[in-house]
């Protein structure tokens, strides 16, 4: 007798968080393995797991049914609390299901839902199948159970079934007896279900762990919260045959037949709003492009660009993507109308069409891009454009999108937050009842980079448990839990916009942020279903550039925009070649600063490479040195054949961009475009959970077939692995390089405006205001202290010399509103006394103290100590109308107070503003003789390599990049600049204490030099922090 056919209609995936113990794809694969006819994924008030299950079942005979499990928050009068499953019978039913989920989710806090029985009565659900899960004997009496069934029957007749499951737990027979009785009373068929929580019984331990975590208790005490056994898995059909009557099994098939909805049939319907009535989308896009052409190329569009535009428009039209480009154009046009700076990036962004539409500033003439990545016909997937906006004004753009399309039609994509090693270890340990303090210690102690001794051994070494059996259990559980979804969060800026109500396409739920809603799918889900999203991202540098441009316009007396910046300016490149790039977009990190003098960028395209090459991908793939050797003519460039030359020529035969790796797989190994794209995705996922080995054989054999030698093939594969998820697409690099050039140009030609714009956009970038101010002064910018009679809230440029006046925003703790009042009520002649300031600006004692602490009232008293003394004791506000003559202001001296020394002023400045305009603390220490024998950063530049040196400085950064094995890079700051210190692992181990805790560090070491780049290889480290005692210094550590 062969096993009966069966469709599983009740199955939780791990998108029912802390309940389901298997991934959707695991369930899907297992259902196929067992020969199920269909599988419904029915997560709790959610369809978040559907796309993944669908992707796994796309090419399998197993039908995927979309459904969801619900428990209502209230019950109809006299009835038991309804618990049931709804299955989508059609596209309409799917929309109804999504609407209901949206209602429940939107009403409750993030991560939960709340549905009332009235909702079921008011929502149309006539195209959904309902499976009722009757209450257990212990939960409800027979009358209440029956009343509940009758209520559902009224709503769903004849689409109601009673679900019966066999979990072999105590009380099961009573429940089955009840099911039979209810079926009889209601004349309603019974359908068999598996109440599935996992794809295999092996997952029972993990399921138990999840249950314990859900109830926030260790397993030892989880007791009856746990299931009695592990029967809630996808059971072989032969087993089901023994457990269920034939009719109940057959009923599953009948229902499966009626559920015809298929997720792949979801099609994105574009918002029609953007096309004027009498235009076609294609015509309108063409028209807008034409208009843009006239703006971009007033002298006439070059022929090559014309050809490109024609080719692009044809492809867009063929794929029906006009609406997508129109949508982005609309958003960008809005931003432009409000003076919000933006810049597109992504594969489709740097196209001729996008240049004309104003989505990008990258002129297609200046960069050759891979047309295949623009839009791939083979892949049948939407184009990819991300748009960066000024970080302080992105919210305006988001609000515009909500206004334009309404909240019903626009929502953010989700980001699935998954278990990472730390969270997995922490949670499993909690469930197993390990001491949390030990676990934290363990987590702190694990060196995640240390691949040699894996963390499992490290845990054993840490004595968390001596019992190898418990350790094995622990590892198995942690490894299984890794990658499990924990909750849905909001994507940084990916919007989904639809033609009709979005909630009929995908459920919408609340995000943690007030007034934000997210859909239940993330960007991968959208991609796999072929749905479109628009990325609206925030970029601090755009804010800074806009502010700098405004200052330049002010200076020039006329508008000055990004388009007015001359291209390929030699002075700008000369500056970058010096490594003088603090504050410049993307190339300001220590690694980039070191690379600039080696790469010596002299053209825009060099910048594109500069941006992409200082990345873990190229570094680990060992592409940097070959490229540099070839660029400087130290090594010949040769290509195995012309096809490869075509791919690699612009990067001198070294693959640097992600696109090149993909393209190489195609031309050198014969991958189809679709296969190459799979490779791209695997690479993107590689660092988290992907696997590249399936591609290895194909790649290598493909290359051997095409006559490449095995060595080359293996190297390419290694490069691909090294690239991993870190590869940088050329199109992104091109967009970024543009901003690199723009910001570098401003720095070179308008330094005051540059630093002012940067300082006004803080926090952003790599450097603290203190470091930026020091760099500004090194570039001959005069910086003036904050002053109640001269400063605005923002930093400003004063006078014809464009001196940078620090704004009141630099004062820690001072509120914007107080500062605004101060500026607003400032008499034309300035405030005359502290009393007048307090009175006119309505400042409170705290504000006054902050201003005095910042020494921002230099006109009123002898020094900051006296100024502060005068303020104290005035906490009681003066009567509102009390006549107060500022002229009878008495100098209220206190003779016992010391006059501030320079050192005291420096300390006080740091405390109040995080920087000082006095001498650098290191200059003071040097003067006092504390730093004898120490060379300054400036002196190092002219010191010979290989000689022992001593240096000292404030520690402003400690980094241990994953690309450098165990080396710690320490950045020290002195009065002349930064000193780069390299600490080898062994040195670091022996001198942990000064390395990790010093704020002022003294280093004895050896000077090393590579061209203009100077390092100190650390030998002996000493902590001199006691010399700067109370000076607050902040360091960027281990980012």
């Amino acid at each position: 007798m062969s096993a009966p056919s069966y469709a599983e209609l009740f199955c939780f995936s791990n998108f029912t968080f802390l309940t389901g113990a298997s991934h959707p794809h695991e369930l899907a694969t297992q259902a196929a393995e067992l020969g199920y006819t269909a599988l419904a994924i029915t997560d709790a008030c959610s369809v978040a797991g559907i796309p993944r299950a669908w992707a796994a079942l796309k090419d399998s005979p197993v039908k995927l049914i979309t459904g969801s499990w619900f428990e209502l928050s209230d019950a109809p009068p006299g009835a038991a609390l309804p618990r049931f499953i709804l299955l989508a019978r059609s596209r309409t039913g799917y929309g109804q299901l999504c609407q209901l989920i949206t209602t429940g989710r939107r009403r409750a806090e993030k991560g939960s839902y709340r549905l009332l029985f009235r909702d079921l009565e008011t929502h149309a659900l006539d195209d959904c199948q309902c499976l009722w899960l009757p209450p257990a004997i212990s939960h409800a009496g027979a009358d209440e159970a029956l009343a509940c069934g009758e209520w559902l029957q009224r709503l769903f007749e004849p689409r109601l079934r009673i679900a019966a499951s066999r979990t072999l737990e105590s009380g099961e027979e009573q429940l089955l007896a009840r099911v039979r009785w209810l079926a009889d009373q209601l004349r309603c068929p019974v359908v068999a279900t598996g109440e599935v929580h996992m794809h295999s019984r092996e997952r029972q331990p993990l399921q138990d762990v999840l249950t314990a975590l859900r109830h926030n208790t260790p397993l030892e005490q989880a007791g009856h919260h746990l299931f009695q056994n592990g029967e809630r898995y996808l059971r072989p059909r032969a087993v089901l045959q023994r457990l269920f009557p034939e009719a109940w099994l057959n009923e599953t098939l009948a229902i499966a037949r009626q559920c015809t909805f298929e997720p792949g049939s979801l099609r994105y319907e574009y918002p029609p709003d953007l096309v004027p009535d009498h235009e076609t989308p294609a015509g309108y896009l063409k028209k807008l492009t034409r208009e843009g052409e006239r703006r971009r190329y007033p002298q006439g569009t070059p022929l090559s660009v014309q050809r490109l535009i024609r080719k692009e428009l044809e492809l867009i039209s063929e794929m029906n993507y006009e609406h997508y480009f129109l949508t982005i154009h609309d958003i960008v046009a809005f931003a432009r109308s409000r003076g919000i700076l933006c810049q597109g990036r992504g594969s489709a962004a740097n196209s001729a069409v996008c240049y004309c539409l104003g989505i990008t500033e990258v002129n297609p003439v200046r960069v050759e891009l891979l047309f295949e990545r623009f839009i791939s016909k083979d892949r049948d997937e939407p184009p990819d454009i991300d748009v960066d906006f000024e970080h302080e004004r992105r919210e305006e753009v988001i609000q515009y999108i909500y206004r334009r399309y309404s909240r019903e039609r626009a929502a953010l994509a989700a980001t699935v937050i998954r278990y990472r090693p730390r969270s997995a270890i922490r949670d499993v340990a909690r469930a197993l009842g390990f001491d949390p303090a030990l676990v934290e210690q363990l987590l702190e102690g694990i060196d995640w980079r240390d691949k040699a001794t894996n963390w499992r051994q490290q845990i054993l070494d840490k004595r968390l448990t001596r019992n190898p059996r418990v350790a094995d259990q622990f590892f198995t559980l942690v490894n299984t839990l890794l990658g499990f979804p924990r909750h849905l969060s909001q994507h940084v800026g990916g919007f989904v916009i639809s033609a009709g109500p979005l909630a009929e396409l995908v459920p919408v739920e609340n995000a943690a942020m007030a007034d934000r809603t997210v859909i239940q799918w993330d960007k991968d889900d959208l991609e796999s279903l072929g749905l479109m999203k628009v990325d609206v991202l925030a970029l601090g540098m755009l804010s800074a550039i806009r502010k700098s441009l405004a200052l330049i316009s002010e200076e020039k007396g006329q508008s000055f925009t990004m388009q007015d910046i001359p291209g390929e300016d030699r002075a700008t490149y000369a500056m970058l070649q010096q490594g003088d790039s603090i504050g410049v977009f993307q190339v300001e990190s220590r690694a980039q600063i070191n690379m600039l003098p080696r790469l010596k960028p002299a053209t825009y395209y060099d910048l594109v490479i500069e941006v992409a090459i200082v990345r873990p991908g190229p570094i680990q793939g060992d592409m940097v040195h070959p490229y540099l050797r070839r660029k400087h003519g130290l090594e010949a460039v040769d290509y195995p054949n012309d096809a490869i030359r075509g791919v690699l020529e612009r990067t001198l035969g070294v693959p640097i961009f992600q696109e090149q790796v993909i393209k190489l797989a195609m031309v050198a190994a014969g991958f189809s475009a679709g296969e190459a794209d799979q490779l791209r995705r695997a690479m993107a996922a590689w660092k988290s959970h992907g696997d590249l080995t399936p591609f290895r054989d194909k790649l290598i054999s493909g290359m051997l077939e095409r006559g490449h030698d095995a060595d080359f093939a293996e190297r390419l594969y290694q490069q691909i692995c090294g690239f991993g998820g870190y590869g940088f697409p050329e199109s992104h690099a091109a967009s970024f390089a543009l901003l690199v050039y723009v910001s570098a140009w401003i720095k070179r030609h308008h330094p005051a405006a540059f630093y002012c714009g940067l300082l006004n956009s803080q926090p952003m970038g790599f450097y603290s205001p203190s470091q930026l101010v020091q760099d500004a002064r090194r570039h001959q910018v005069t910086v003036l202290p904050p002053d109640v009679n001269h400063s605005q809230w923002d930093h400003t440029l004063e006078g014809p010399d464009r001196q940078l006046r620090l704004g009141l925003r630099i004062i820690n703790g001072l509120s914007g509103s107080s500062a605004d009042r101060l500026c607003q009520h400032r008499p034309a002649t300035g405030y005359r006394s502290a009393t007048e300031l307090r009175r006119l600006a309505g400042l409170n004692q705290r504000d006054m103290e902050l201003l005095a602490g910042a020494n921002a009232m230099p006109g009123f008293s002898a020094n900051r100590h006296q100024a502060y003394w005068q303020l104290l004791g005035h906490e009681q506000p003066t009567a509102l109308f009390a006549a107060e003559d500022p002229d009878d202001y008495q100098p209220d001296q206190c003779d016992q107070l010391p006059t501030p020394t320079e050192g005291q002023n420096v300390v006080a400045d740091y405390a109040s503003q995080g920087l000082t305009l006095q001498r650098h603390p290191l200059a003071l220490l040097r003067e006092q003789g504390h730093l004898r024998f120490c060379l300054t950063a400036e002196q190092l530049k002219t010191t010979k390599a290989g000689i022992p040196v001593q240096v000292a400085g404030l520690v402003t950064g400690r980094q241990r990049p994953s690309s450098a094995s165990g080396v710690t890079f320490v950045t020290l700051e002195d009065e002349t600049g930064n000193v780069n210190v390299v600490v080898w692992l062994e040195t670091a181990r022996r001198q942990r204490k000064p390395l990790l805790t010093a704020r002022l560090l003294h280093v004895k070491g050896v000077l090393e030099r590579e061209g203009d780049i100077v390092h100190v290889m650390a030998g002996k480290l000493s902590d001199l922090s006691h010399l700067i005692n109370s000076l607050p210094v902040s360091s960027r550590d281990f980012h």
Partner: protein
Amino acid sequence: MLWLYLHFPHLLLDHIRRSRDNAGALVIVEGSGQKVIQACPEARDQGIRAGMRLKTAISLVPDLGIVRADHKQEARILADQALWLYRYAAHIVLVPPDGVLAEVGSLQRLYGGLPAAWQTVEHALNDRQLTAWMAIGHTPLAARLLARSGKGECTADQGHILRSLGQMPLLAAGFDERTCTRLQRLGLNTLGEVFDLPPAELARRLSPETLARIQKVQGTRADPQIPWQPPHHFRQQADFVQEIEHAQGLLFPLQRMLGELEEDLCWRQQDTDSLLLVLHHRHQEPARLRIRTSGPEHRAEAFLNLLRLRFEQQPLQAPVIALVLSVRRFIDREAPSGQDLLGETRDLNEAWHTLVSRLQARLGAQALRRLSPQADHRPERAWSATEVARQTRPARTDLQQLPRRPLWLLQGPQPLTEAPRAWFAGPERVSGGWWDGQRVQRDYYIAQLHSGQLAWVFRDVRDGWFVHGWFG
């Protein structure tokens, strides 16, 4: 007056280290486990400081020992320090969480001079393996500040003390954060500079409290201290001229001692549930008898009955020359509730305690047990037996949720030796307990044996059949 202050920079650590053999670096972390609040000398040598993030501390010392702070324990340990110091000084003040203050006058008298007194305390600290920073001051606050900054000296010279205080950095002077910031912003660095400010201005511009604090340090303002009281402890001793050979002979003196205990308890409105009786013998180690009642008790008669039973069970090992009765555990008596006044619950309660105490005295406390269901799917773990103590009513589990089970459970599963006459139900599958090594994987059935017994049988993963219970 002169004050001695003992500051214990890491009392909890000292306490823990005393009972540890390995002397590795050890820290105390705050409750949430994020920050180090105490670091032992070894840890400090390696760069760990109080206030450091635990993360940083572990990077410095990977095999760091970590103990979580326990404020109750800390308070108890501090009180222990007062207890021994009480032997040397009459007037003691606890300054939680880490200080003890003692008036030096009495010490000086007792030991003949300050240096001797200082040394005595130092020795006592050494004996106890405690780290304490000592200081002498003419005011409690002066002593405290000096001790906490580690600048204490054995001197009674007020001028010298004030000079030391004057050099103390502001941060060490214990001002609240706001005052400290303000004083620093005025350019002041030491306590002495604050002393120099005009007092009236100090009160007006900073706060009256700041001035008061300065004056308390200087001694121009009173700073009354609440003296510490040693804890209550009941102890009565009876010495016998003639050795007592039989337990019976002890009952008479005990009656009197228990009577005094009853009076003491009534006076304090307290009960106890534990007495210690130490019987001293001439040629033998003393015998220690601990008597526990099943609930709070104060009546001499009840205690005596229990003792009598105990003596019946456990005859004297040797003739007794002295008898000490002591009680350290006191329980506040609950106010009788209104219902007790009307009903007879109290009486029954007492009868219950009397019976249970009596049974426990003879059979041993473990012989009596109370049963309760436990939330666990494994049948052998689904119940527990606990010693019978005071009447407690644990939270009731939802009875409806409990599975149908037999009234008898076997001590351990017994192999099923016959094919049952009839099968009734099953299988009920139990699979769980993988996490504690007691994994169970069984299918349970109800079956009737040929003897007519209704049995709860299971087949486990090894395919064996067992009886696990009887439907009694």
